């Protein structure tokens, strides 16, 4: 396990918990999905796993050492994060924003490959035509791809994607799917949250299923995508049918009734 959270609690306003004694483990090379209903605490969980939120109690360890022991910069060389905020202040260009992905490596010997990594990220995220535009003039889907390129350029072994498909249409999601698979095949560990159960079930190898502020189930996709567990987490009756897409990826069709 490269990333382990134990008994993590995050309290919100007025004494309620956003996360209540949550345990999560992510193994090396997993494509790890985080799913659950609105308000279950997926983003908060992504926040503590990526070190952006410090839990009020509990521990998060990356490669057996506490996340809190790493400096902000060391952390940024260990993991990259695609958040949900897409707005960028002032009129920065796409090329400038993608180059920020290399900021954590300034002054290290890795910096010598900055240009190469930026070009690769632009190619993988398919944004070459957008480079000279200002990011705030782009559509939501285009902006998302620019931020994905920035996160790829950061080139970390562990990557977090918080609802990466939320601003994308069908074709955009297909592109995203390919991008994430490419990153995964490159040996990286990915943690991806989403509301699109069919898509994420076809993409991921492992799943953490959140209910109200706690983990309902965790494990390989087939073990978690069951009617019982999903129904329990979403508090409604859900049926699951497995199917295979055109490229041979098995995915779950989940319907509530």
């Amino acid at each position, binding site marked *: 396990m490269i990333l382990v959270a134990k008994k993590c609690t995050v309290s919100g306003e007025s004494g309620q918990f956003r996360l209540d004694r949550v345990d999560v483990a992510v193994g090396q090379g997993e494509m790890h999905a985080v799913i659950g209903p609105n308000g279950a605490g997926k983003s908060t969980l992504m*926040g503590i796993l990526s070190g952006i939120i410090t839990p009020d109690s509990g521990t998060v360890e990356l490669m057996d050492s506490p996340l809190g022991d790493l400096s902000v*910069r060391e952390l*940024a060389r260990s993991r990259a994060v695609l*958040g949900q*905020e897409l707005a960028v202040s002032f*009129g920065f*260009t796409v090329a400038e924003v993608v180059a*920020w992905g290399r900021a954590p490596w300034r002054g290290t010997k890795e910096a010598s490959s900055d240009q190469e990594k930026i070009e690769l990220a632009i190619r993988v995220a398919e944004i070459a035509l957008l480079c000279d535009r200002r990011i705030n003039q782009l559509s939501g889907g285009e902006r998302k791809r620019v931020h994905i390129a920035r996160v790829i350029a950061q080139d970390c072994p562990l990557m977090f994607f918080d609802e990466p498909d939320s601003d994308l249409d069908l074709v955009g999601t297909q592109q995203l799917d390919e991008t994430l698979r490419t990153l995964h095949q490159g040996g990286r560990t990915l943690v991806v949250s989403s509301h699109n159960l069919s898509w994420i079930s076809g993409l991921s190898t492992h799943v953490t299923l959140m209910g109200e502020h706690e983990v309902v189930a965790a494990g390989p996709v087939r073990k978690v995508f069951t009617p019982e567990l999903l129904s329990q987490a979403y508090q409604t009756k859900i049926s699951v049918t497995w199917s295979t897409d055109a490229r041979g990826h098995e995915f779950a069709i989940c319907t509530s009734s």
Partner: protein
Amino acid sequence: MKNPGRSWIVGIALFITLSVLIAVSLNFGAASTDSVVIWNIRLPRTIAATLVGVGLASAGVLLQGSLRNPLADPALVGVSAGAALGAVLGAAIGLPFNSIGVTSVAVVTSSIAMAFVLWVSRSNGRIEVVTVLLSGIAVSAFGAAAMSIIISTSNAAGTRSVSFWTTGSFSLSNWSGVNAMWPAIAIGMVLAFFLAPSLDLLALGDEGAHASGVAVSRVRALALLAAVLLTAAGVAVVGVIAFVGLVVPHAVRLVIGPSHRQLLVVSAVGGAVVLLLADTIARLALSPIEIPVGSVTAIVGAPVFFVMLGRARNRQGGWA
């Protein structure tokens, strides 16, 4: 990053303009042009205008970048009023004007004003764009009121009236004034130069910047400290001059883009140009009567602020 060539051209053009303005500023004025006048009166005044321009424009860059607020200006967020009050307080406890002592007191009170405005404007971990300006108004009003009470109840202020402090003037900028301001401005500029790349990443928002390796709280605190040093040093000697910190970075961003290191350097030169020009106009337009230099900058700056305010409001869908 964007158009480094254009940044150089703009920077050099501004630098040439600055040199011409310095020459004009030194050679024209009400009094005769003997070397004593130039050396003892016009040269320190010209240097002071240059330094204050550098300080205010750079402070604007730092405030706007660190607060992600294109409407921030040292005078509009209350930092300048805090500094002016500090300078008057310093004089009231017996420190001479145009001294490092008065500058130090101004830095302290200006920091307090900045901290107060931020504390009031924080909401859910964000610093609200408009609340910063509204709190700035309140802090400025408080500063001006406290200042006029001190000035009217003691003779510490000497020839410096309330209006000297609220609209600014280079008329009392002598060599000791220059010496009282340059160290803080130099420290502020060095800090700003090293913080500039991190300010770029702050444009991603606090979480995005943190995820990209920026120690957000530390960078923001240092940027605001630099903005305070750059503002307070000038204000302690020449009073409050508004809108330079707002308009100059905005105009420069339109020409060379928002990347902070270039923005900082070009805005610094641009600020010097603008204030030298404003002071030359203030001295010569209605000669021998001198107009307050802050009035010159406000006449141009206030309309620009209105346009920007309208744009920011449209972008955010109105402020109910």
